[in-house]
């Protein structure tokens, strides 16, 4: 096991553990904090994959901007005082555990049938020739330019929709 594998398992473990902690905390502020930790660990895994630019984006956008938004919403809604458990009664606990087991079995089957790591490393030469930003930007604005434009329209529609629903005298 070389050092990069060790680093991978370290960050993957932290990501999974803080993911679990995030959904089990009762205080939403703690949940948000654990989400930051998860996102940071995933960013570290991006670095291991030589996707430095993606890692930077991950930290700036998700761990930075979006998380601040979450905290604002939690603060404004004044959440985190009274809790009602989602699972009431034993029956639903069993249903939940059963569903979890099914998902776990699916994961197991998928992992067993996952294709082997494919051939030579294609990413490294690409990164050398184009740099980390170019490797992201070029497909984004050439092959997937239509998808990028449609995403722009999609975000605009979501914004217009939010304004229509929220900012109107009834």
């Amino acid at each position: 096991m070389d050092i990069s594998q060790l680093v991978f398992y370290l960050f993957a473990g932290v990501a999974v553990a803080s993911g679990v902690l995030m959904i089990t905390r009762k205080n939403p502020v703690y949940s948000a904090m654990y989400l930051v930790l998860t996102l940071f660990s995933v960013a570290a895994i991006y670095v291991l994959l030589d996707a430095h630019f993606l890692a930077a984006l991950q930290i700036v956008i998700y761990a930075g901007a979006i998380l601040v938004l979450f905290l604002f919403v939690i603060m404004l809604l004044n959440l985190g005082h009274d809790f009602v458990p989602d699972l009431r009664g034993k029956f639903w606990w069993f249903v939940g555990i059963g569903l979890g087991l099914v998902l776990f079995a699916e994961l197991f089957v998928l992992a067993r049938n996952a294709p082997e790591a494919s051939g030579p490393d294609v990413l490294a030469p690409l990164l050398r020739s184009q740099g980390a930003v170019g490797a992201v930007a070029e497909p984004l604005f050439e092959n997937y330019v239509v998808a990028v434009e449609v995403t722009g329209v999609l975000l605009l529609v979501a914004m217009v929709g939010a304004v229509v629903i929220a900012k109107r005298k009834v």
Partner: protein
Amino acid sequence: MLIDFSNHLDYLWALLPETVLTAGALILLMYDGFARRRSSDSRAVGWGSLVVLSLAIVANIWLMGVEEASRTGMVAIDGYRIFTNFLFLGAAALVVFISFDYTTREGMTQGEFYALLLFAVVGMMLLAGSRDLILIFLGFELMSIAVYVLVGFNRRDPRSAEAALKYFLLGAFSSAFLLYGMAMLYGASGTTNLGIMRGLFDAGRLSIVAIAGIALLAIGFGFKVSAVPFHVWTPDAYEGAPTPITAFLAAAIKASAFAAFIRIFVVALGDLHEYWEGIIWVLAMLTMIVPNVIALVQDNIKRLLAYSSIAHAGYLLVALIAANESGMASFLFYLVAYTAMIVGAFAIVLALAGKGDERQRLSDYAGLGWTHPWAAAVLSIFLVSLAGLPPTAGFIGKFYILQAAVEADYIDLSVVLVVTTLISYWYYLRVIVSMYMKPCVAEIGRVPWGAALRAVLVVCVAITVYLGILPSWPLLKARQSVEGLVPVAEQVADVRP
């Protein structure tokens, strides 16, 4: 003109109708931002949206003369896309027409209504015309987000908010299924392009990842086209939404989801027919039987039409599973017929409901044949057509679907289709009986029939009757549009035991 997708600028030409619609919707939004909140301004935006829609139709006609160099671009330029584009644009125009009076009556005079409607149409056209999973998903979301807002547009009405919330939650949930399915197909094939994907899957030995992807996609699409058992959101969403939007939901949105369903399953995964026919068979069976039975006891006309719309999704699933050219041609034909009759029926419901959408119960329709003979007669035509009685479009549509199913050797589904159609006569005819043979309970009084609404009714009746009497030319067009789309019809016949 020849489009070569290796030159990325050519996408602009290939997407001309969508571009026109988006630009028009943006201009309308800008105009609305500076307009005052009056009903005349809202009407101006409505007329503007009709202009934009007709420009897009012109662009779509221009697209008919365009050739594509290869069949692997992100966007398809084929008869299927052009046909469905016409359908969506036409349906949207009908919905805009019936919205004029409704928005004034219910005080929903925000111009965003029409802009969002246009954006939803952009989403639908991308959905039906894309050959790439990423674009299909983005089209889905674009359409859905615009429609979630439209369903909840009437904020004075708590039913509208409830419908929007239910539709939003289940829609987001089903999008996750779709996305997982697409991710797995991508993982199994290494491409998101449907044209390339087709050649990569080997029907003999398919990886379990691909099978999981197909299953998840089927579930996601099941939600989107409201197939049983994923239909529970439909009656609530249809009942609570503003009535023009209900017509839009029932006609265009279901049609676009089905169009993408067919493009992915029949065109891209056509060689894997044996893998997905089982799940679609069950969906089709349940979707024909369950809603037709539940509809028997419905007392609210909008809910009744909602269940009828679910049942029609079942009939369309039969056309899908047949996976041959007749199936797809009958699918397109049925969509046109269904759009005309369901929009027409909802237009009548909308006008009769009166301010605040009060009159929606079947008992409100008692005696309508004598107090409002024209409305009752026109509604009867649509109901008869939905039921599938000759000489209407519904009969011919069902006939061709049956033919396609028998051609593909699905005798069991054909029998169920016929039997459930017979069951459905009961609840369609119940409305007609109550209109003509029951005494009037509560006087409806004068109903304002605006010119736009009358025009829509005339168009819908004309299409319904025309397709029922002279179906050969439209069917020929439908058949020409799907030509070459499914080179699998023969192979499927070999694969089936």
